[in-house]
Structures are given as structure tokens and as C-alpha cells.
């Protein structure tokens, strides 16, 4: 049985105005467990808190009830007061008699009556409270960033700058991601490579950053502060530490017919390759699917020409196990496949391209060395049609497109149109759109410049069909504003393909027990207030894995995620919330219901031996809650039929005691 003290606050006249505080204190005196009850003008004041502290000492209180304002206001205050007096802070309960009583009830009689009942409920709860101690766990001071695009790089740089080691795992042979493939960036039109590659070099040279390129995460265990991650380092058949990146092998390799993914297959590379000149790490990689030596055992040219002796045809995938305190997901995006969009003749004509392909076509390092030439015949196009929202904002077309807006297309299309008109004023540019969305700093100005200064033809309406005919592409479209059908014989059609999360995101989410939405974008812990955190503690989100973003947004989110990681890694110990779920193993059935509803993957199962009452032992599967991961929502407690799962601080019997007290009339 507890020894409970009750402290009724007047809150000046805020409470005392409509609640007879003396009557409340008096009425609660006879409640079970109550040994002391008083009221005071301002309980939260120093004097008020001293009353509480003194009472705790004088009456050897084991629990206290403060009838005052909302616990959202002063629960923390009174918990500290209790702790200062040597009482476990979780032995404090607040009866909210201000916001939920005195402020809303005008009548003293009913206000007082309700305050008494709320007080009784709090007393009933405290009677069943038990001291709680927050769990502590250590923090491994190393972060993992999954994905080496601009998001991952920025996050890693910021974490590293704060002095924490960080690893980047990038599945491609080089970091850089999508941004490395871009030409210019909106709305300032600076060159993507010029701003990205220095960051890539920074990352490579930063002592705190380790880059696992050509690698993938294959296994994640543990929890916030203590993740155990297995990284697969795919065999690249070139010793990374020896290769100097001279590139001789990539020139001598006899296998010349490998589609160059960096240029989206618009030209070829060798079987041994360096994706692009500024690649980081600048190390060659052998493409095992095409290498004659690896496939037939006959060739070995690269090994012969490599003076450093970096080639190793016997290399195997390696697995690295590493511990991390925090994980940042920066898996990025891809344009969706255009295969299903037959109406735009993407598969039929080489001159129907995606915007990303267009980027490569205008990029000085691209297949055409930056000259805008038609892929089919290398001729200069004079009439170019841009189609917006291909697969974006696609209602009822889930089988090929996406319901959401891809966000970046309006701006990059304006950029493309503007760049064409700037370089090739003789070229007509048409842009078909549903809406032009330009929310962003200097975005609308940018778009207006495209229309007004550069004379790009913006037409509200959708392209119905693109039909290749001879050298031309007949574009049939509707002009919604003028209400007429348009027929344009274009030389080049550029599709603003919707973007979707990278395919590696889904299996990764499963490994991380991080939740995803139906589009496979990672879910944030709170859409407004915790946008860079995953609901799974210790997992953070950076860049397009969380939703479509442009570069400035990605970079700001990357830095935000980094600051969250730094905030975590700077701690030596993580103090958990003690109000978390706890499984009574003796009653647990091991049925997995709780595990299925846990949003954090905090519940695992183990086989344990139990001594039965008849002295036999029984091996049983029982749930155990990881206190570092559980956030205390309580979903599991209701899923559990046997009541084995309960929530500290909000135990079944505590809530029922409150119910009883309230209903007792």
C-alpha cells in the first residue's frame, strides 16, 4: 500500500475560481492510501514545490498526486520535485483540474465535484504505480549512411565535421548518385559537377569518412545506439588500395560493347571501367557480366597493362561487420520505367527520351560531348516537345505510374527548355503540362524567364500520343486553354518521367524495421515535427528516400539528418523512456501478435526454458521487448490476448483503477 500525498493547486484564481480547492483536498484525504492532503496557491512555485518536498520527507510519502494544470505543462516539474526529495519521479501523477476542469466549467459545484473525481482517479492510479527507472544503453560512436548521392555525402560530411566517424555504403562503384549525372542545376544554372565533385573529394579525403563503394547492406540487427550491420563488398576484381585510377586498362580492354549506364545506355564503355572522370573512389571496376576473362578465362589484358598490379580476377564478395550508433538512409530515387507508356513511343523511337537522358545529352562529359544531337541520327533537333507528368499525378493508373507529384520535373523542364533556347535559339521548344508548380525560392521567377525571356511555348494540356513517322515524331496533344487539338512534328520528345524510390529501399526497410508508405517511400516519425527521423529509433532519413525532393531540399534534409545523428552520437548513454512495454514471460504465449503490431520492431522472440509447477521444464517461445527501441505506444498490450504484455506507467490495472474511480458515483 502506498503512502500518498495530495497537493491541490489553486493556480491563483485559475483553479480556485471555479473549484473549491479546500473541499478537493479534504475529500481526497479519505481515499485509500492517502496520508496527507493540502492545497496551495501555486504548487509549481518554489514555495509550492517545497511544500511537496517537505511532505515527502515528513510523511514518508511513496507517491504523490498533484491536482493542478495539465501534465503537459508541469508533469516534468513535479517529477523533478519528487526526485529532488528522493522519490522516484514516476510515482507522481497529475490530476488535470485546470484545463480539463476549472477553465471549462463555470459552476463551482460541478467543477469541484469533477475535480474530486479526477483527483480520486489519480490517487487510484498512484496506488498502483511502481518506481520506474529509465533503461540506459551505450552508444557506438559511428554512423552509417546508406547511399552515396548528394544526400548521403552531405550527411556524412556534416557528421564527420562534427568529429564522428561515418561510413558511406554505396552500391555503385562511385559515389555521386544522380546529381553526378546532371548538367546544370535550377534555378541558378550552376554546373552540377562543379558543385558536387568537390564534395565528393571532401568525402574521400575526410579522415572520419570511410567509403564502401560497390557495396550493399545485407543485414541489420541491434537497435538505436547499437546497430550491427553486415556490409557486402562486392568483388570489383580490382584492388582498391592499389589501383591508381590511371585508366589505362579502361582504354585497352577489348570488350567495348558494354552499355554505359552512366550515360543511360546512350553510349558504350569497356568491361573494366571507371564510371566517370571524377569518380570517387577513382578506381576501376570489372563488370563481371561482360569481362571475357572472368567468363571464359581467356583475355587478361587489363592485368597485363596494369603496372600497379591491381587486377585480381580471383576476388570474392567480402562481408564486413560493423557496429553503428545511428543509420541514415539516403537511398535516393530513380525515374520510373517508361516501357509501359506506349503512347509516347519511348520504346519505338530513340528520339523519345527521358529528362535524365536529356541531361546526359547536354552534358559536356556526356555521349555527345554536350552537343544537343538526336540519338537516332546525330542531327540537331529543331523542334523539341517536353511532356510533363509522365507517370506522375497519375490517378487510377497505379499499374504504370504514381499518384504523387514528382515535384522536380516542372523546374528541370523549365531549365532544359531555357538551356536549349539559350544555346540553340533556332530551336522551338514546347512544354505540355497539367500545372506548373514552382514553389521555391526564385523558382517562379525562373519559370517566368523561360516563358518570357526565352520564348518557350508552355501549353496546358496533355500529349495524347507520339507517333514516329520517318525522321519526325508526330505529337498529338490538346491545348486545354484554347480548347483545340495540336499536331506537332517534333524532332525530339523529352518525357519528364516520374521518380520513384530506389528498388533497394524496400528490402532495406525490412532489415531496419523502418516503416514505408504504399509508394515505398520511408515514413517519417512525424510528418511535421520529426521529418528526418524514421519511427524506428536511430534510423534517419535523408533525401529522396523519404519523398521527391530537389537538390536544395535534399541537402537541407541531409544536414538536418546529420544534426540529428550528431545529437545522438554525442551522448554517451541513451536514457530510455521507462514507460515502455514489458512482457511477463510466464504468461506469454509466443503467438507473435505483439510483434506484428509493433511499429518499431522492438519485440523479438526467444526460446526459454521454464520450470513448470509440476517441476518439469518446458521450452517456450516468449516475447521480449527491447527497452532501447520501444517507444511505449501500447499497441502490443491490446494485441496480447493473455495480458502478458503490459505498459509501464500505463498498466492495465492502473487504467482500470482510473476507470473505476471515475465511474464510481
Amino acid at each position, binding site marked *: 500500500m502506498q503512502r500518498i500525498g495530495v497537493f491541490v493547486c489553486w493556480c491563483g484564481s485559475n483553479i480556485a475560481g471555479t473549484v473549491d480547492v479546500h473541499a478537493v483536498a479534504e475529500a481526497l484525504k479519505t481515499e485509500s492510501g492517502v496520508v496527507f492532503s493540502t492545497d496551495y496557491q501555486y504548487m509549481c512555485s518554489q514555495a509550492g514545490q517545497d511544500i511537496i518536498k517537505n511532505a515527502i520527507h515528513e510523511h514518508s510519502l511513496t507517491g504523490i498526486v498533484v491536482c493542478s494544470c495539465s501534465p503537459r505543462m508541469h508533469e516534468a516539474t513535479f517529477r523533478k520535485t519528487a526526485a529532488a526529495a528522493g522519490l522516484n519521479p514516476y510515482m507522481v501523477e497529475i490530476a488535470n483540474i485546470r484545463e480539463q476542469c476549472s477553465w471549462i466549467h463555470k459552476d463551482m459545484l460541478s467543477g469541484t465535484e469533477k475535480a474530486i473525481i479526477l483527483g480520486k482517479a489519480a490517487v487510484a492510479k498512484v496506488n498502483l504505480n511502481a518506481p520506474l527507472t529509465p533503461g540506459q544503453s551505450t552508444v557506438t560512436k559511428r554512423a552509417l549512411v546508406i547511399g552515396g548521392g548528394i544526400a548521403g555525402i552531405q550527411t556524412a560530411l556534416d557528421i564527420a565535421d562534427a568529429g564522428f566517424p561515418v561510413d558511406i555504403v554505396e552500391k555503385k562503384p562511385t559515389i555521386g548518385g544522380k546529381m553526378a549525372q546532371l548538367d546544370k542545376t535550377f534555378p541558378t544554372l550552376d554546373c552540377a559537377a562543379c558543385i558536387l565533385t568537390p564534395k565528393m573529394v571532401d568525402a574521400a579525403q575526410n579522415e572520419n569518412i570511410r567509403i564502401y563503394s560497390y557495396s550493399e547492406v545485407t543485414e541489420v540487427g541491434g537497435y538505436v545506439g547499437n546497430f550491427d550491420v553486415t556490409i557486402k563488398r562486392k568483388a570489383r576484381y580490382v584492388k582498391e588500395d592499389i589501383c591508381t585510377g590511371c585508366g589505362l586498362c579502361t582504354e585497352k580492354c577489348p570488350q567495348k560493347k558494354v552499355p554505359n549506364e552512366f550515360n543511360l545506355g546512350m553510349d558504350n564503355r569497356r568491361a573494366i571501367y571507371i564510371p566517370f572522370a571524377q569518380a570517387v573512389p577513382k578506381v576501376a571496376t570489372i563488370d563481371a557480366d561482360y569481362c571475357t576473362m572472368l567468363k571464359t578465362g581467356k583475355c587478361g589484358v587489363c592485368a597485363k597493362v596494369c603496372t600497379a598490379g591491381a587486377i585480381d580476377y580471383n576476388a570474392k564478395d567480402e562481408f564486413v561487420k560493423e557496429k553503428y550508433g545511428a543509420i541514415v538512409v539516403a537511398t535516393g530515387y530513380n525515374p520510373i520505367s517508361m516501357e509501359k507508356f506506349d503512347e509516347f513511343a519511348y520504346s519505338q523511337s530513340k528520339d523519345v527520351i527521358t529528362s535524365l537522358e536529356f541531361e546526359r545529352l547536354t552534358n559536356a562529359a556526356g555521349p555527345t560531348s554536350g552537343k544537343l544531337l538526336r540519338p537516332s541520327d546525330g542531327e540537331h533537333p529543331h523542334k523539341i516537345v517536353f511532356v510533363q507528368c509522365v507517370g506522375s499525378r497519375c490517378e487510377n493508373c497505379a499499374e504504370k505510374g504514381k499518384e504523387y507529384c514528382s515535384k522536380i520535373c516542372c523546374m528541370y523542364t523549365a531549365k532544359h527548355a531555357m538551356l536549349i533556347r539559350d544555346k540553340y535559339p533556332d530551336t522551338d521548344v514546347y512544354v505540355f503540362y497539367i500545372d506548373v508548380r514552382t514553389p521555391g525560392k526564385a523558382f517562379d521567377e525562373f519559370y517566368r524567364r523561360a516563358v518570357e525571356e526565352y520564348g518557350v511555348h508552355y501549353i496546358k494540356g496533355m500529349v495524347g500520343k507520339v507517333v514516329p513517322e520517318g525522321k519526325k515524331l508526330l505529337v498529338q496533344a490538346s491545348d486545354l486553354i484554347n480548347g483545340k487539338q495540336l499536331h506537332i512534328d517534333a524532332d525530339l520528345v523529352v518525357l519528364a518521367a516520374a521518380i520513384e524510390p530506389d528498388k533497394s529501399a524496400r528490402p532495406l526497410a525490412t532489415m531496419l524495421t523502418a516503416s514505408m508508405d504504399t509508394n515505398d517511400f520511408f515514413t517519417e516519425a512525424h510528418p511535421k515535427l520529426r521529418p528526418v527521423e524514421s519511427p524506428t529509433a536511430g534510423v534517419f532519413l535523408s533525401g529522396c528516400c523519404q519523398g521527391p525532393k530537389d537538390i536544395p531540399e535534399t541537402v537541407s534534409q541531409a544536414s538536418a539528418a546529420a544534426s540529428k545523428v550528431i545529437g545522438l552520437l554525442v551522448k554517451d548513454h541513451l536514457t530510455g523512456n521507462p514507460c515502455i512495454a514489458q512482457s511477463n514471460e510466464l504468461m506469454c*504465449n509466443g*503467438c507473435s501478435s505483439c510483434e506484428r503490431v509493433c511499429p518499431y520492431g522492438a519485440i523479438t522472440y526467444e526460446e526459454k526454458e521454464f520450470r513448470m509447477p509440476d517441476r518439469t521444464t518446458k521450452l517456450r517461445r516468449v516475447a521480449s521487448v527491447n527497452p532501447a527501441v520501444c517507444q511505449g505506444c501500447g499497441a502490443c498490450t491490446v*494485441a496480447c490476448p493473455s495480458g502478458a504484455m503490459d505498459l509501464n506507467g500505463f498498466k492495465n490495472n492502473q487504467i482500470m483503477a482510473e476507470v473505476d474511480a471515475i465511474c464510481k458515483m
Partner: protein
Amino acid sequence: MQTVTTKSLCERAASLLGEGTVAAVLGWKRGEFDYDLTPAVFTAAEELTEGFIYNDFSGANLSKYLLKKTREIDGKILVFLKPCDTYSFNQLLSEHRFDREKVYAIGIPCSGMADIQKIRKIVGEGITAIEACENSLLVHTLYDDEPISVSCAEVLTERCLNCKSKKHVAYDELIGDEGEVLTSNRFDEVEKIEALSADERFAFWQNELSRCIRCNACRDACPACTCEKCVFDNPNSGVQSKAPGGEFEEKLFHIIRAYHVAGRCTDCGECSRVCPQNIPLHLLNRKFIKDMNETYGEYQAGEYDNQRAPLVNFSLDDPEPSDVVKGGFDRA
């Protein structure tokens, strides 16, 4: 009459016992009369010949016994499962309630079980013997010189009348012919009650549930009720109770029991079969099944191993509670 004979099952079981594939056989044992069979474990061929029986009264679902028996018995256990029993079997498996490796499941066809109470309603008391014929049962009684013939269809148990499936969803071996999942009318009765006014519904359940004597037979027989310790037995749960009382306790017990097995109940009907007070408890479970099917899509517990039951799942566009209650059967 069942399409497989006791003898054929006995022989198969005996041979599996003999060759050492299984250490014990979980089946039905004949009783004093032809209808009072008891689930039993057989460990020798002679025991089988002497006691094993599979007839129109082998209603008891044996799957729940596997929890205890797989722990107690070394070696594999042969269990005979009727189609509906296999659903319970699967459900228990997905809840990790026994070790699949320790079980040798033989699926056996079932042409429906007879309800002794229905037979009594027709022939009266004093049944001394029941002979199974093709489509009928010959019932001998103390008070009639000639046996009375009742058609099997007429005396099928309620649950068999609404049989959901003649297909076995899990087994190691099948004896007899495999059946199919049926389109049953099992929700008709639920709909009938739904169609009543609130007062009538209340009166109906008040009458039914007030008969409850809290013998816990429904719970103890239920293959979904496998809690290490039931909340109603647990002094710390706050809802422990032993007797009906205050007109509330029995309602609480049955609502919560149905809720706890919702999504896990395979609708095997054991609860109603074993109720000594003949409370149609299965209707509570069926109501949940019907609601879940209508609201969240068809779901049959136990159909597959390791499914995610509707109540431990969600979708972003689930209807609101107010719409569910109103939507399904608004009678205004």
C-alpha cells in the same frame, strides 16, 4: 456415415506405429454408447483395435491436444484431422504453439457430424445404440421396439450444416478423397440477428448469455484459446472471475473471449458444441469474422500458415468505426 472406415484408419495408424514413424496416435476412443467418444492417445496396435473409432460422432477437434501431447510424448504423434480441424492446426502452427516436426498429420474426409441432441429431439431419451447406414442412422432406444431411422442430413450438427470447407489445408498424408472449400451460409444466422431491432438483439443475447454457468468449457475446448494463463483466471488481470454475476460478468467474458480470438478463430464450432447450456457462442465469433470479412476483405484464419490477421493489420483507408457499425446493416 463417414466415407472412410474406422478399420482403414486403424490399419494405417497401426502400420505407422509399427514402422516407428510415429510414437503415438491421437484419435477418438469408443465409449459406453455409440456416441460418447473421447479423444485419446493410442500407443499400440491392440489399443487401436480395441478402442479407436471414427464415426458420425467424432466431432472433437483434436488439434488443440497437440500443444500438450507434443511436449509430453517423445517422438512423432499421428493426429487425425477432419477438414475443419486442419484450419485450427494451421492457426496453432502460425502461433508457434507446437512443433510441426513432432506431428504426423493425416487428413481424413468428413461427411458431417451428427448431433446427439438433435437425435434425442427426434427419437426421445433412452438411446441404446446407433447404427450408421449410408445416409441415415438407425437409432435403438429403450422405449421403442424397432430402431428409428433418422436421416443424417436431418441431424447434422449446426456447424456441419454450415460447413465452410471439405478441403484439408494441412496434412502429411491424406486418406480418402480431398474435398473443396464450400460456399457456406454460415453467416445467415448472424444476419438474422443483425436484422432484429436493438431491443430484440439485446433480449436474445441476454437470454442466451444469462444461461452461462462459467464452466469454461468453451474456452478450454477452443483451439484458439491457448493462453498460458487466461486473463479470466489471472488474479492480477483485474478481470478474474469464476462465476456469472451482476448480469455483466458473462457478457464481459464472452465478448472479450470472442474479441481475443477474433482473427484467430477458424470457426470450428467447438465452443458451441461443448457448451453444456447450448449457448450459440459460435455466433459471436462468426459476427467478428463476418465484420472483418466485409470491412477488411475476406480472411480465413488457418487457411495458410503465418497469415497476418485483420486485427494485427491495417490499411490507410480503413473505414471509421462509426461507418462500420452503421454501414454493415443500418436498420435506421
